[in-house]
């Protein structure tokens, strides 16, 4: 495992082990395709998932590619940062055809444009006209109170409705 970490540090990337079989690499945006295809060539053939974290204070999205190598039982977490206003990212479909589905989901929940992905149509949500829901500035309680017409307050229950008598 340390052989991989040293190799990646040799390529000028910042890599550190998380556990004895998992390490993470943070990669600038342009070198993601290069690092992913390099890892795929050295045994990380299984693409596990693509996650996206919305760092709203730093104004950035963080894309997390997770790969797994079955030969030497390792887990590689490749992270990259992309700017938050009109975020675009090149699609990794050429390396793994599987990314098409994960990128379509991240596009719908965060609004990231994946250049090269043939099919970014709506996936889970039907006629959604608001900002992508998993962004930090989307308030789900205000949305559901508006849409489903019920009133709820945020203080987790410390309030005194007047009309209750015990049964």
């Amino acid at each position: 495992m340390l052989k991989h970490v040293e190799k990646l540090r040799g390529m000028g990337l910042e890599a550190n082990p998380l556990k004895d079989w998992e390490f993470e690499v943070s990669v600038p945006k342009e070198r993601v395709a290069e690092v992913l295809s390099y890892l795929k060539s050295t045994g990380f053939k299984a693409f596990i998932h693509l996650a996206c974290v919305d760092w709203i204070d730093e104004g950035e999205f963080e894309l997390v590619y997770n790969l797994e190598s079955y030969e030497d039982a390792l887990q590689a977490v490749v992270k990259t940062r992309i700017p938050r206003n009109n975020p675009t990212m090149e699609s990794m479909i050429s390396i793994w055809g599987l990314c098409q589905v994960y990128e379509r989901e991240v596009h719908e929940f965060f609004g990231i444009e994946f250049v090269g992905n043939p099919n970014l149509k709506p996936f889970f949500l039907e006629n959604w006209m608001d900002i992508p829901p998993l962004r930090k500035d989307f308030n789900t309680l205000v949305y559901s109170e508006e849409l489903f017409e019920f009133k709820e307050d945020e203080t987790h229950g410390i309030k005194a409705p007047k009309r209750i008598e015990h049964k």
Partner: protein
Amino acid sequence: MVNFKKNSLAPISALKYLFKKPHTVRYPKEDLNVFYLKGVSPRYRGLHTNDLSKCIGCGSCAKVCPANAIMMVESKDVKPANKFAKTVRPVIDYGRCCFCGQCVDVCPTRSLQMSREYIHSFHPKLSTSSEKEPETVVEDFIWRPDQTHADNPGYVRT
């Protein structure tokens, strides 16, 4: 498991089920008796019970509830246990409660517990108009736990 051919006598071996007791639990007549108590498990997370005298109305159960189901409501018929105790008591909205038991785990005076009762259903009357029906339904599932099912304790904080 190596050969996948079924020998021809296999269906006959199914006849032994004729003389076996059915393992169906005929619910209304007989109950589940797997545990040392009849019915559900001795640790079952069912409808809540609350010892109104021990409860000090601190509201930590309302704060910890993931479903925002517990409301602290002023109750006239209860006197505070000591100088600091308040007279608000938890009221549970079973249209929200997910029966996770986290309120029982966090209750400092161990007054809020869960009983082994779980049956409750509500039929909105035909007379209530459609507009008022959602309100009456939500209304029926909100009540303040007290000692009604306390004789049948289930999930208690040890």
